[in-house]
């Protein structure tokens, strides 16, 4: 089958069609990695590019992401059994005392779309929980978000928790949120700062593609 058709169905957010086409591709004996990369992830890349070019909005990306998830639900057991690894593992959350989650959710959605496995810890996350969860799921990247000037310092507290573990260098720590800046990120020892969700996904992808597993 033509994976362009699958890719287009994802782009258009046609979840049922995506499921049908993924099932068909699997039945035809196509490699699950090929279906994933050329059918699903490629489509999300196209939608992401359209977003970057101001041709579509986030709701249209979310429709595509949901369609992708429907296809992925069929592929996931096959990916595990055939030993195919995700692009990387990301843990993301909003710091303690901060209830804002829209920006964080956007970053999580974009990182899922690029093929990473994302563990979303939610909002008001205690410092220690970031560390525990990152270690538990063997994360590559930890994304920490804060939206208030008075919760922003908690980003530094989370990073200090990582520093206590001797495993700090194992995790690539990315930070963001309205009051956060590059200089603040440098000051608290983060590995990367981005000012918006698409840049966050780009930086994460570049890092994950560069690391040796």
């Amino acid at each position, binding site marked *: 089958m033509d994976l362009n058709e699958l890719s287009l169905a994802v782009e258009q957010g046609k979840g049922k069609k995506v499921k049908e086409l993924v099932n068909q591709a699997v039945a035809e004996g196509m490699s699950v990695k090929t279906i994933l990369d050329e059918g699903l992830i490629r489509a999300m890349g196209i939608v992401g590019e359209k977003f970057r070019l*101001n041709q579509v*909005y986030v709701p249209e990306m979310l429709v595509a992401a949901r369609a992708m998830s429907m296809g992925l639900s069929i592929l996931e057991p096959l990916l595990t059994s055939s030993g195919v690894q995700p692009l990387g593992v990301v843990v993301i959350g909003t710091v303690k*005392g901060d209830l804002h989650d*829209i920006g964080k959710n956007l970053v999580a959605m974009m990182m899922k779309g690029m093929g990473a496995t994302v563990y979303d810890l939610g909002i*008001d996350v205690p410092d220690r929980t970031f560390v525990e969860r990152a270690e538990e799921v063997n994360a590559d990247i930890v994304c920490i978000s804060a939206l208030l*000037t*008075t919760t922003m*310092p908690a980003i530094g507290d989370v990073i200090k928790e990582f520093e206590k573990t001797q495993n700090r260098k194992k995790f690539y720590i990315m930070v963001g949120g309205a009051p956060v800046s590059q200089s603040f990120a440098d000051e608290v020892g983060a590995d990367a700062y981005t000012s918006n969700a698409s840049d966050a996904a780009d930086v994460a992808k570049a890092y994950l593609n560069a690391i040796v597993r």
Partner: protein
Amino acid sequence: MKKVFKSLAYESVDDFIYGSCPNPVTCKNGLVIGGGEIYPEVNFTLPPMNATKETLPEAINIYRDMIEGVLKKARELHAPGLVIELETLPQYTENPQWGIDLHKVVRDCMFESEAKYGLKSVMRMTPNDIREMSRPPVMRSGKYWEEMVRIFEGTAQDGADILSIESTGGKEINDEAIMNADLRTSIFALGCLASRDMEWLWKQLSGIADKYGAISGGDSACGFANTAMVLAEQGYIPKIYAAVMRVITAPRTLVAIENGAIGPGKDCAYENVFLKAITGTPTSLEGKTAACAHFSPIGNIAAAVADLWSNESVQQVKLLSGFAPTVSTEQLIYDCRLMNIAAKKGHALLFRDLLVESDCYFDPQAYVLRPDVVFEISKAIVSEETPFLRTLKAARVTLAILRRAVDSGELVLDAREAKWIDILDSQIEDIPEDEEAFIAEMKEEADETKYSPSEYGI
């Protein structure tokens, strides 16, 4: 007793101007809001720092510096009066005594300035709605609500003039709807959930205000419509959706006035222009002079019918001229001076129309704030009787008005934007007018791990 609004408070749109309204509010010190002059409303906040018990003394010193700078500037520039908004940080609401202590320091400086120099200043106290810190939120009981009551009562007792809040009932459902530009769910969140919460909440807050002689001010759907505005500004969601969101928050915020609030409405509640048209109560608004806090496509038009003119919030950071709250104060005072002198010379209507026309054709969010459009939408809102039906009607009428504006060429939208009028129309065409039937449908669709229907009495 619940107030009922079935018609507009104005006969003519030409009377719908800044600085005055049919039902002005007189504060304890005699300052009249909406009585003919527009006054600045200044809000300020801490620079980046931890808000903890250990840093509270430092925070209090910073707040003292901020209010002293603001009051000094107001005296130097001969401000006829001003409102200070103290919007607490979540930590200062969660630990109400910290918030009460902080308020007392600021309020005492204001009392002193009035006694020594005659500068009339009014304190608007805005604690956070921390009920959402429980997930799903617990709306009508529990420790967070008790802490909120403590700070409202403590500050009202210490002289806070106006009580306000940016309440968050229904936001837990609307947050995801915003990212999906899902108008159907937003109508449920605002028309069914938020409105029920507002009725309960504002009876409580008006009761507290009455008990301590404070003014029951008003609410803001900031977490709904301003979140949409900011996301639209960043190019994440359609401006059309943000414009409709703005309008459909009006029936929800109107519930505060129905249940005891008398204004002035909150600065960030742009829906207050509809409330002013319907109830005749005064309102604060913010636009270009709030760019220190957030960008917006409504910098001038927001001032068109404002009774207080606000900076939203600014951090205590040093700029070339001085600290940012003092800078904001100067900017607001000059804005108000110009508007007041125009009104004094009989040009308020012309000035209003200049503010309107300079913005209204560039963005649907500005277009819906045109006074004639506000009247058209407000009439549609009061033609219905319940918050749900008013919300649904507001959405439908707004989409029709925006379609008409685009078709006539008055409002220019780019291609990716224009198609959203049809998309949003189709999202809501099947919503039944029977609220119970709609709630039953939405209870099937909405994620019950995120909200508790029983907290809203549904």
